[in-house]
């Protein structure tokens, strides 16, 4: 077999093994190991590459961002900051049609700016804002749809673990990716708000609520005093200022910002008396487990991209795609479709790690901006998280919903309009790369 054939066979084998349930890092790493063994004719080369990926490959100062931002995200999820910001957003938007839905988007956007793990936001807001919307008579489908749709904001708005992972694979600066994520994230948030307003105006039945009964409940609810609002908002402002301000102001490296942010989150949860010793242990241990599985994926993916490079598949693949009539736009369309399809079955990290090493060499001749390409990749893969059969965000929300009457089908159906809006935003981002590159 030629190198290219081995490479192609490996990619197919990896995908089949992953879909049939093998651990993603094991499938990526082991198949790549065997392929390099076959191509080089001895076990010496693959063992060397694998050990390099697992030891000195991981010894990078900027990988420190991952444990620190995961720790920070878990700490802020622990101390009810999600509920606080949601209360404030609700109060501010209570007079607007569909206000609770918009409040969910707004609260998610703010929450995304202090946490890097989007599964955290999905589970926090499934518990906080779905019951609230139900209380005001909103339809279950709309309520879960908003939560599912806005949970993906967490991956795009910095600090985000996804932006970090892409920066690592594409060998870019984490700070640049953080700068690039902001505007697309806000754009998506505003697009969601526009969608909700349109629904409230043209399809009020679909949203539900907004009747005498819900207005009566709203009247009963007291007013939030200025002091209460300040108390709820200040922790957010402090954390955002520390982390994003520190990075954009050039005071901190992203790793330092992660450490300072985690320390800030720790102090806030101590002040709010939300942290007992067992809870803190659980948070640390959970951080460790998430980080271990994330970075093992990176080890395996490093091995995989070395294997691809040795096989020569990406270059050959690029030549082949260039020879077809697809052209630049056509290749991008194929790429996005593949991302969305994979997103329905796999988590975003795995998709980035599998697809980016394969497509970067293909895109190189077109002189694209790699930062922009990363934003496209993340948004594309995230669309899949909202679509059946296996959109992960929807599963997380279904699992954490207190209201067991809402079916998985409702979650997917409710998320669908938001997935469509995401696709429109993605098209916009592809057509106007400047949107992602304003601050870079």
């Amino acid at each position, binding site marked *: 077999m030629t190198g290219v054939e081995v490479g192609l066979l490996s990619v197919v084998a990896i995908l089949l093994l992953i879909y049939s349930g093998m651990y993603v*890092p*094991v499938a990526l790493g082991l198949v790549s190991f065997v392929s390099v063994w076959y191509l080089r004719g001895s076990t010496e080369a693959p063992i060397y590459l694998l050990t390099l990926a*697992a030891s000195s490959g991981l010894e990078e100062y900027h990988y420190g961002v991952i*444990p620190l931002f995961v720790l920070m995200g878990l700490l802020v999820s622990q101390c009810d900051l999600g509920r606080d910001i949601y209360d404030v957003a609700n109060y501010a938007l209570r007079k607007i049609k569909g206000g609770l839905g918009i409040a969910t988007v707004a609260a998610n956007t703010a929450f995304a700016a202090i946490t890097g793990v989007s599964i955290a936001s999905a589970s926090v807001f499934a518990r906080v804002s779905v019951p609230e919307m139900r209380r005001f008579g909103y339809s279950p489908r709309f309520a879960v749809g908003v939560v599912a749709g806005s949970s993906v904001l967490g991956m795009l708005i910095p600090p985000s673990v996804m932006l970090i992972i892409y920066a690592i694979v594409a060998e870019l600066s984490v700070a640049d990716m953080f700068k690039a994520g902001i505007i697309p994230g806000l754009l998506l948030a505003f697009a969601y708000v526009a969608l909700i307003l349109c629904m409230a105006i043209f399809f009020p039945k679909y949203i539900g609520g907004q009747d005498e009964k819900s207005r009566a409940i709203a009247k009963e609810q007291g007013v939030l005093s200025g002091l209460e609002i300040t108390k709820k908002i200040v922790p957010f402002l402090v954390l955002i200022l520390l982390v994003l301000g520190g990075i954009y102001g050039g005071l901190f490296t992203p790793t330092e910002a992660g*450490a*300072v942010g985690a320390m800030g989150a720790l102090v806030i949860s101590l002040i709010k008396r939300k942290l007992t010793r067992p809870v803190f242990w659980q948070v640390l*241990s959970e951080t*460790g487990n998430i980080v271990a599985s994330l970075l*093992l994926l990176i080890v395996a993916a490093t091995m995989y991209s070395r294997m691809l490079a040795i096989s020569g598949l990406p270059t050959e693949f690029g030549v082949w795609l260039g020879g077809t009539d697809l052209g630049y736009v056509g290749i991008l369309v194929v790429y996005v479709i593949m991302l969305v399809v994979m997103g329905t079955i796999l988590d975003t990290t795995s998709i980035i790690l599998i697809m980016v090493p394969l497509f970067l060499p293909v895109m190189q001749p077109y002189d694209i901006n790699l930062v922009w390409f990363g934003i496209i990749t993340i948004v594309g893969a995230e669309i899949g998280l909202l679509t059946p059969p296996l959109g992960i965000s929807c599963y997380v929300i279904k699992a954490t919903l207190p209201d067991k009457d809402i079916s998985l089908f409702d979650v997917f159906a409710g998320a669908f309009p938001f997935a469509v809006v995401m696709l429109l935003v993605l098209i916009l981002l592809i057509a106007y790369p400047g949107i992602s590159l304003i601050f870079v």
Partner: protein
Amino acid sequence: MKEFDASKKTGLARAFELWVLSLNNIGAIWIFVLMVIINADVFARFLFNAPINGVPEMVALSIVGIVFLQLGEAVRAGRLTRSDGFFNKVVEKRPKLGLVLNTFYDLCGMAFFIAILFGAIPIFIESYQGGYYVGTEGIFIIAEWPIRLILVISCITVVAVFLSLVKRHLTALINSGATEQ
């Protein structure tokens, strides 16, 4: 600290579980220490204009330690990334096939970590005998071999965890065969 389940286990199995959890807890404390050290560095730099030497080196070396120390527990708790939508359906409809597949996957996991181990052992010996260090001489240096040793110990642990999972699947498989007859 993660609670340790001491019910109905043989001495060896209990000791092993305790070992895996201890590694996991060391890794957890390590993350906390990392956070404190970086904060100390940042504050010392801004307040007293006196940064702590060697923090970037310590952070870089820490990553391997944190990741591998926690992998044993992550594997044991089924936390490795996998796409389980299709797989769960198989387990539901044909539990035996599910067990066979799981045995195969865990054997593959074992093979993967044995491969890492094969490379990790010579690297450890080399760094120990050669007295390798990272950092700049005269300012801050830290020996490399402890982190390489952690890699070796952790890999052996992960291989053993996979082995215990394989044993559990096979036992379940044999038992399910026995109850059917």
